[in-house]
């Protein structure tokens, strides 16, 4: 199909239009709504964890009614707690963040912002979503099989993950986990190839790479990261499956036996191989989540600062540097793993190197606000929240990236606080910012901004009450993945803090109902939105909300300038659309 014919799409029935759709906008929204549903599950799991951590083994007959095995006798079982840990982490990392940021915003925004009618491979795109949905169903299935969900954490360290006899949930639950992750990586690969191809070949006339909005740069780099990192996880999962059912020993050494003295029939494998493979994927994965969040936050910050992003070029270079470095820092998860300590030094150096482009980005966000004229819309509030939580979580990463200070902090709540702020809260805030911002383009209506503001204030205070004190708990030594911290006397100073965090977490969790209610109510009840409700400059705001199939009118837009002409001297308004040709009164633009 040529682009000229494409806008003449035939009328489609409801099912083809909204369900088995190949329209990138529908697929994007499908990703967002599916990921939100997964987030509800992941969030409820974390509330149960907080219940146990705040009031260890408190009897709860109500919960026994809901989870007869998990709460047998009215008290949460340790293996049930650990299955919550595993499933919360897995669901949030893969099925919420990766899905919503790349699958959701990637699909919705790439063609709209680069001036294309759809993705390069619309069918592959739909297939990617349906594979993702299948992986969601599979991972949720792990909660219902005999033995329950796996208990080894989202990192699934071998040999715990390789040997079903090492614990409840390590049988069928673990098998489903691997299948779900394999399906997810397949879905991610289809998406990634599609994004890279679309961004390289389908940009409209005038849309040079250096005129792309930063969201697009972020999605481009993320797609490359995903395409290189996901196959490694897939391969590791396949090897793990061979170990579990094929009698191989990639990850299991000789001489092991169970607690009842039964010898394990494996020999010759190495447990650290799993960690190397997992983190070779796992660290880029952090940036697969974080980079799109950075891109979205950058664009939204600039829009509501009514001021160009500070140092666009450095933003692009630093994202590229982060992406490259993310492949050579994985060993900082393994300082205490028994890996050669010389490698510990090497990975300390590369890890602190990655702090430099991260610092550049922080300077640039703050620089963008210097001399701005900030409009405190809900997307802007969340974008500022993103910057603040990214700073907090990013700086605490320096302690963990330095091998010597990691010794005391490894596997403590310091780590939990760090990664939640930097790769859960920060991306979550960017995703919220993005949803409030692009909701009118998705559904043609605005979300309720009063509810949105309440949502922001509770969330911003909430996340800082929940996750920042975890650093202090980690310094005291509070171990992560611990079912009952009151087992340890040295943790006595932080028993109370656990309760404080739990209460804050319940309030924070409850506040998210505001968002979900606002989201669904606004689809039908929100005030109608015009083409460009935020006075933004990028291409998606030149077309009706929501745009029709094919996105643009008979002619594709022609791009004349970069995406950040806010407050341009000499211009009539405080923003200039990317499609507007330069006039002679302008003093300059990127």
């Amino acid at each position, binding site marked *: 199909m040529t682009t000229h014919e494409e806008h003449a799409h035939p009328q489609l029935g409801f099912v083809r239009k909204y369900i088995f759709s190949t329209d990138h906008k529908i697929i994007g929204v499908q990703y967002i709504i599916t990921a939100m549903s997964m987030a509800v599950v992941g969030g409820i799991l974390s509330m149960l964890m907080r219940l146990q951590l705040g009031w260890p083994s408190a009897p709860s007959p109500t919960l026994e009614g809901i989870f007869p095995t998990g709460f047998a006798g009215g008290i949460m079982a340790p293996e049930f707690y650990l299955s919550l840990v595993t499933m919360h982490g897995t669901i949030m990392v893969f099925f919420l963040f990766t899905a919503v940021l790349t699958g959701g915003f990637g699909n919705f925004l790439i063609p709209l912002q680069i001036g294309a009618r759809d993705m390069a491979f619309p069918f592959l795109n739909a297939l990617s979503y349906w594979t993702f949905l299948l992986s969601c169903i599979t991972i949720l299935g792990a909660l219902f099989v005999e033995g329950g969900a796996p208990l080894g*954490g989202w990192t699934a*360290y071998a*040999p*715990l993950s390789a040997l079903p006899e090492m*614990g*409840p949930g390590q049988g069928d639950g673990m098998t489903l986990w691997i299948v779900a992750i394999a399906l997810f990586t397949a879905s991610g690969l289809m998406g990634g190839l599609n994004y890279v191809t679309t961004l390289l070949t389908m940009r409209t006339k005038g849309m040079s790479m250096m005129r792309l909005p930063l969201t697009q740069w972020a999605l481009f780099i993320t797609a490359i990261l995903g395409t290189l990192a996901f196959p490694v996880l897939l391969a590791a999962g396949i090897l793990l499956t061979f170990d579990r059912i094929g009698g191989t020993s990639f990850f299991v*050494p000789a*001489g092991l*036996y169970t*607690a009842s003295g039964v010898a*394990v029939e494996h020999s010759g*494998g190495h*447990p650290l191989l799993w960690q190397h493979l997992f983190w070779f994927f796992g660290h880029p994965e952090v940036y697969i989540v974080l980079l799109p969040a950075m891109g979205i936050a950058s664009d939204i910050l600039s829009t509501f*600062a*009514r*001021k160009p992003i500070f140092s666009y070029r450095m933003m692009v270079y630093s994202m590229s540097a982060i992406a490259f470095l993310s492949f050579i820092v994985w060993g900082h998860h393994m300082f205490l*793993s*028994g890996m050669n300590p010389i490698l510990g030094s090497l990975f*300390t150096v590369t890890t602190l190197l990655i*702090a*430099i482009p991260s*610092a*550049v980005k922080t300077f640039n966000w*703050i*620089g963008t*606000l*210097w*001399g*701005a*004229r*900030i*409009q*405190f819309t809900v997307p802007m509030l969340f974008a*500022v929240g993103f*910057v*603040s939580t990214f700073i*907090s979580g990013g700086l605490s990463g*320096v302690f963990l990236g330095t091998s*010597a*200070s990691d*010794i*005391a902090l490894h596997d403590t709540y310091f780590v939990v606080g760090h990664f939640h702020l930097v790769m859960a809260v920060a991306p979550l805030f960017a995703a919220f910012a993005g949803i409030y911002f692009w909701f009118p383009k998705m559904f043609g209506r605005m979300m309720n901004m009063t509810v949105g503001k309440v949502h922001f204030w509770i969330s*911003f205070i909430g996340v800082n009450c929940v996750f*920042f004190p975890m*650093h*202090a*708990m980690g*310094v*005291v030594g509070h*171990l992560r*993945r*611990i079912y009952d*911290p009151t*087992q*340890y006397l*040295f943790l006595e100073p932080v028993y109370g*803090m656990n309760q404080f965090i739990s209460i804050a977490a319940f309030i924070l969790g409850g506040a998210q109902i505001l968002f979900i209610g606002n989201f669904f109510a606004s689809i039908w009840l929100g005030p109608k939105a015009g083409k460009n409700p935020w006075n933004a400059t990028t291409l998606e705001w030149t077309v009706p909300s929501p745009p029709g199939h094919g996105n643009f009118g008979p002619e594709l837009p022609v791009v004349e300038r970069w995406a950040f002409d*806010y407050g341009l*001297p000499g211009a009539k308004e405080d923003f200039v659309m990317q499609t507007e040709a330069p006039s002679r009164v302008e*003093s300059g633009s990127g």
Partner: protein
Amino acid sequence: MANGVGTGKVTVPGVVLGGLLAIFVVISTWLFITDRYWFTELSSEHGASLDGVFIAVLIVTGIAFVATQGLLAYFVTRYGANGDEKASYWHDNPKAEMILIGGTALTLTILVFYGQLVWYDIYFTDPPEDSMVVEVTGQQFQWVFRYPGIDGEFGERNISLVSPTNFIGLDRNGAGADDIVALGQMHAVLNQPVTVLLRSTDVIHNFHVPHLRVKQDAVPGLTIENHFVATIAGEYEIACAELCGANHYRMKAALTIDETEAEFDQWMEEQLPFQ
């Protein structure tokens, strides 16, 4: 409306957001300075240098934290929208960028060097010849401690000998005849170097003694060496710090640092009848 004329406005949401950020900075700083939430009491020789690295990183990141969150708070408070006044139109300053990048790089380089000197000291210094050797075996969900006995040599371990009373399959013929095995209890002597040989018989565990700043994975198939010198006598908690299965949370043990060699020897003797 003209560029550079207006100055922005202090707005209500700007003040609330900036104020919240400021409060957050103050509370966060307090959390890290107060000794209420500090490390457990330091009881080992090498631990001081580790705590030192933590403090160095804390100072550097603390300054960066207050500066960046503070600037963020200031700008959101100071630069609210003011009617149709335009923002300043500038979007690059290569010199400032280079200074900030250079400064960050230099600071991080110093941190890396300092941190790595300590890291090398710990991992690349051999324990003294006379250090006491203890084999520590992690298994779901207990710690087994083995001392080589009078001959100073560990006996063989054989998986076929594993039984409910012989957790590690110790062969009592040969060098293993006088080995001393203790379940969940480890003893060492004050100011005497100890070398720990970490092993596991099932999944990955982590030998963690918070007061001694000792934390090291026990990996099945590997024997990993770690050493320490305890500087305060007393009872310490040993935890498993790597998720190892359902009852990971109660995979505990006790470490006693005896004041004198005599106390230690007495404990050793008490262990003998149980062999």
